[in-house]
């Protein structure tokens, strides 16, 4: 999570629990043995290419699809056998808006509030609250079909909040939004998480998830490929980490590169950048052995100003996991650790 202020509402209480979820359509496996847990107050980003199984997983959680095997629970309630209770626990925003012609924003919200059985007076108050939260109050008299995509996404989010659900499941909430609207939506999601909501968000726009999510899950071909914080996933991808050594003088770049080549595994990738006075190399050596490399540089008379790991960004991780199956090195087992947030 890279927001300015860390949230204090994150707890260790598991709210969304998926265990060995599998969904098959004939011989095609849309979802393959997905196991994930999301704690209260967390934001989980589910990413993957088209057809990865993200929407299938989400639809199982909201009771629109039955899994072939496995279980899914929200706040202890089974998503398959007790879908009536699930509907009150979850606010679901699909990737399409679900517009009705000739209906004003307030009427739209009033209708969905009424379907949840909220009494008229309480509903009116609640509508004001969610419009205030989502910044849609100024468009209450506009027709929903005449709204821009960004406005519709906001109204969609207001709709999911009407019955004050514990968990928000948002399918591509920032898809198709302009940069300004994306920033606003991102801030809105962070605000909701601060209010104690648990969020499960899918997105293709990776930097957005980098900024707002506590945990990220990468899926391809129906399988979970990686799970953890953005930093953890970066490390899982990059079994060979990228290290940069910043030097005082560009004259020492070649000498430093030779020392590093001798210190790390033979044939490793070492790049000299004299213009920047930097030597960059990739290695699979653990942290303790990297300290030894630094010591050898200093002993060799190299004046080092910085010796640091370059962060692998989520985009690189995503690309790494979404390569064709033969090129994928990591598996849920190999990425290590129990898959729990």
């Amino acid at each position, binding site marked *: 999570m890279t927001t300015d202020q860390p949230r204090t509402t994150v707890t260790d209480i598991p709210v969304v629990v998926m265990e060995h979820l599998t969904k098959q359509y004939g011989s095609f496996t849309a979802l393959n043995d997905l196991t994930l847990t999301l704690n209260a107050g967390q934001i989980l980003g589910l990413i993957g290419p088209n057809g990865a199984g993200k929407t299938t997983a989400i639809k199982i959680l909201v009771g629109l699809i039955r899994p072939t095997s496995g279980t899914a629970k929200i706040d202890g309630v089974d998503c398959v056998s007790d879908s009536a209770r699930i509907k009150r626990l979850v606010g679901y925003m*699909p990737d399409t808006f679900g517009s*009705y012609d000739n*209906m004003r924003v307030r009427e739209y919200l009033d209708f*969905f509030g009424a*379907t949840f*059985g909220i009494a008229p007076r309480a509903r009116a108050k609640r509508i004001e609250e969610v419009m205030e939260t989502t910044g849609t109050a100024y468009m209450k*008299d506009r027709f929903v079909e*005449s709204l821009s995509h960004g406005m519709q996404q906001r109204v969609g989010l207001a709709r999911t909040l009407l019955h004050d659900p514990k968990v928000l499941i948002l399918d591509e909430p920032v898809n198709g939004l302009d940069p300004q609207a994306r920033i606003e939506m991102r801030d809105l999601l962070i605000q909701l998480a601060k209010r104690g909501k648990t969020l499960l968000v899918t997105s293709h726009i990776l930097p957005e998830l980098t900024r707002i999510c506590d945990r990220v899950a990468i899926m391809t071909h129906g399988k979970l490929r990686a799970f953890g914080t953005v930093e953890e996933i970066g490390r899982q991808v990059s079994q060979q980490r990228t290290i940069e050594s910043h030097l005082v003088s560009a004259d020492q770049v070649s000498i430093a590169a030779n020392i590093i080549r001798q210190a790390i595994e033979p044939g490793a990738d070492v790049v000299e950048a004299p213009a920047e006075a930097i030597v960059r190399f990739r290695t699979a050596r653990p942290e303790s052995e990297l300290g030894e490399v630094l010591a050898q540089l200093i002993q060799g008379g190299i004046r080092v100003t910085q010796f640091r790991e370059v962060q692998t960004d989520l985009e690189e991780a995503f690309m790494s996991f979404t390569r064709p199956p033969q090129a994928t090195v990591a598996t849920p087992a190999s990425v290590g650790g129990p898959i729990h947030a």
Partner: protein
Amino acid sequence: MLKAMVKRELTSLMRRKRMMALQCGLVAIFAVLIAIRWPTDARMALTGSRSQQVFQLFGYGLLATLLLILPVFPATSIVREKKQGTLALLLNTPLGPWRIFFGKLTAVLALSGVILAMSLPAASACYAMGGLSLYGDLAKVYQILFIAALQYAVLGLLVSTFSNSIDSAVRLTYGLVLGLSVMTLGPHYFFQGTKGYLADLGNTLYALSPFGAMMSLTGVADAGSKGLIKKAEILGQFTVTSLIVSAIASLWAISRLNHTIFDQARSQGTISDDQTSSVRFFRRLFFLVDPQRRSSNISSFANPITVKEFRCRRFGRLHWLLRLVAICAVLSLGLTYATTAGTFDWGVETIGGIMVVMQVALLVLITPSLAAGLMSSERESRGWQLLQTTPMSITRIVWGKLLSVILPLMLILCATLPGYVVMVYIEPGMKLQVERVIVCLAAMAIFAMLLSAAVGSLFKRTAAATAAAYGALLSICALPLLIWLGRDAPFGHKTVEAALSVNPIAAALSVIRMPGFQDYSLIPANWWFLGIGSIASLMILLAQTYRISRPQ
């Protein structure tokens, strides 16, 4: 360039599997029609009466088929492209509006040519049976069919340039076709044989209908067996008026095919409550129920689905319905008063017939447009998956939706009640008849609603659902009337009675003893049919709703 346009249009039309099924079905129907009347006797009648009997049915059948099938294609042609964004691409090419329009028109006419070509073997068989002239009869029937196809294709395209949604284009086009082909026959029937401007108006309107032209050509008696107009006159008038209407509508449609079709500002959501008191007063006066007023919260006692359906439909909102009902009430009272005062020498049965026809026309026109899209519009707008995530049960959703159709239909049924009350006051002996007519109309309304909803629920797209619902309802209402047209020959009394017993319009007209229908006893057979049909339709609707709401 025009060729490329026509090719693209035709390819997308003809690639559909339904189109192949349609063509096979048409060939089969025409083949059966000829087969059942093919001479089986070794002796041959030189008069060719048998051939002429088949020919009469064949002409009407072909015209009805064309009017049921064809309008949906031009109606959706432009608005679909507008919604998909391909119209903007087309307008951005050097094609220009003329080529775009004529490309689309040629494709629709080619499609109607295919439908007509399916009938050629049957037409040849009619000709081979003897008694028909190639140029005097067959060619003229095809002339009427072609001109009707041209006129309705152009009107459909024109409607399509104005519409903002596919289903509203379909609804409006079918309404126009029904109005121009069937409703125009009404005034002629009631005023024929009289003199004055009303009779002239009746004749002018009659000449707009392809059915009128077909009646005069095939020599079949008018509805009610009072035909007095010469056939050559009607055919010529129909041709000229149709070509004029087609030319005007074509120019109008072409003038709409430019950037202005997209140049529409998004609605800013004006609310009457925020306007001055004088504006509010006038809007209240004009609309009775102002559609721009700020609506209140849905009551705890109301079904939210019913309220939602009322709020999100354009046609069918209260301000439209109240006007419609007011017009019907005034018309029915006016007609009854005119008869009582001796202005028209029509008799109470005829007045009753007019009111029945008026109500039936409204029911046939309005019910599919309200009921067909109940489920398909939810699926198309993706609102269905949102409803699935609410705690509302399937039965409550279906009931809420049906209720949103029942209420407008009740208003329509009540519209002519004042007229019936006056009628019973004038002729107390008609009380039982009027009661039965009201039962017939109520049964028809329920049947039409459930049939349209059930047929519509089978489709994912509202346009297809609306077209299919109109097709199903019009088939039940119109096809038995084709058999009724051949009531003297080739069909006997029993055959016609059996065919009419499924027709709710004929049942109501027979109860009111409308000339032409008074000899048939259609009650209670028709009520049984409507009852069983309604229950079956409800079952289909519930089963289909349950199917789509189940987790996959």
